């Protein structure tokens, strides 16, 4: 119970803490540091991923509704960082907490799962936006996002920038809103700066655009 409460308390105190000390967005915790140094084993990762399948699906394609993101094909580094951030409470999701906390996943299992997921094929039948925002979304993306998330939405493994292409529209939109509004605490501050001035309609357009991008070719 303690582990579950702590993040909530931290969040309640967040505004005052933020003034005192701004954490470095990619200053990863012990767990992630360890996991990043381990060479993940994809076969073991497949078994460790079983408890995740009920939400993220067997093929890790998530849900087209956007309730659960696609994880297949995402960079292992990004996955390790996000999982560790959930464990440490830097990123909060109560629905997932009971299945991903430190009580069930250690650094080895995180590395294994990440290695397994990175190697899975990416489905192109993701939940797409309405399509009406694509041209405006394209403009915004080229201006503010391409530098980090890449021309094809492929992201950057070394820098922990997530692949955003072919992700579910509703998930992208929700995350973009959370990041803009400061509710996803592990976000990159430069990304927050870029997205801060966006109105909801801008976010819808750029999420629409990203959701229509074809799955990037991965070596």
């Amino acid at each position: 119970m303690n582990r579950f409460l702590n993040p909530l308390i931290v969040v309640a105190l967040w505004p005052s803490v933020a003034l005192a000390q701004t954490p470095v967005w990619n200053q990863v915790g012990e767990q992630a540091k360890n996991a990043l140094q381990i060479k993940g084993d994809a076969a073991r990762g497949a078994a460790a991923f079983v408890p995740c399948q009920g939400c993220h699906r067997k093929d890790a394609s998530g849900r087209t509704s956007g309730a659960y993101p696609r994880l297949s094909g995402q960079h292992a580094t990004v996955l390790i960082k996000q999982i560790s951030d959930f464990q440490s409470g830097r990123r909060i999701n109560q629905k997932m907490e009971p299945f991903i906390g430190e009580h069930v996943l250690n650094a080895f299992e995180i590395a294994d799962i990440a290695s397994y997921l990175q190697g899975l094929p990416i489905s192109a039948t993701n939940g797409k936006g309405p399509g009406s925002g694509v041209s405006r979304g394209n403009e915004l993306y080229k201006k503010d996002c391409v530098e980090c998330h890449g021309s094809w939405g492929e992201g950057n493994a070394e820098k922990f920038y997530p692949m955003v292409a072919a992700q579910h529209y509703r998930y992208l939109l929700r995350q973009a809103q959370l990041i803009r509004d400061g509710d996803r605490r592990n976000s990159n501050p430069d990304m927050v700066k870029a997205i801060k001035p966006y109105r909801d309609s801008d976010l819808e357009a750029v999420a629409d655009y990203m959701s229509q991008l074809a799955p990037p070719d991965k070596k």
Partner: protein
Amino acid sequence: MKDSDIRHRFKPDNGFLKIAAIMTMGWTFPGTSAAADAHTIAATVCIACHGDDGNSVIPTFPKIAGLQEGYIVKQLRDFRSGARTSEVMSPVAAALKPEDIAPLAAYYSSRKMKPGEAVDREAAGFGKMVYLDGNEESGVPACIGCHQAQGVGYLIYPRIGGQHAPYVAHQMKDFASGDRSNDFGRFMRAIARRMTEEEIQSVAEYLVGLDER
């Protein structure tokens, strides 16, 4: 909800339970060679409640045929240690010799669980959705993620396809209340707490008819 709400199913009266329990507790397990005894113990003790071959007839007693071997071992050990408790089953497990557990588990896991037939088709239809998709709104994961297609189970995730509905519904409520708390990772407690009464009853009804294919 109480067991009495499960209208369309036969509920054993308490008298039978007590007789079965007393019968079992009075029993001293015979023999010395454990492996040879598994069949004897099964055919003389377990059969009273879990039926021939582990396919119990009475729906509040679980079918134990075809459960994962490791899962059976874990449950018997948990009953013995008190990690899982049941007025009826705990004394039976306590009377077992530790060396009987592995052969009994091997025996029952090699039997086939015989499915039943859903009585309430409409409920089973809704239960199928719960099984395959869960509930995105409340965060109930799809059961299929862990218990696999047709509920056949996998490693630590037990077979639930073909199991009796009243037993399943009862376990879900015990997970939700914490009366059963021996689940790995607290997974089932977290899941059952998120489920509505209707979801629990319906998914239980759906599981009854699942057969291995």
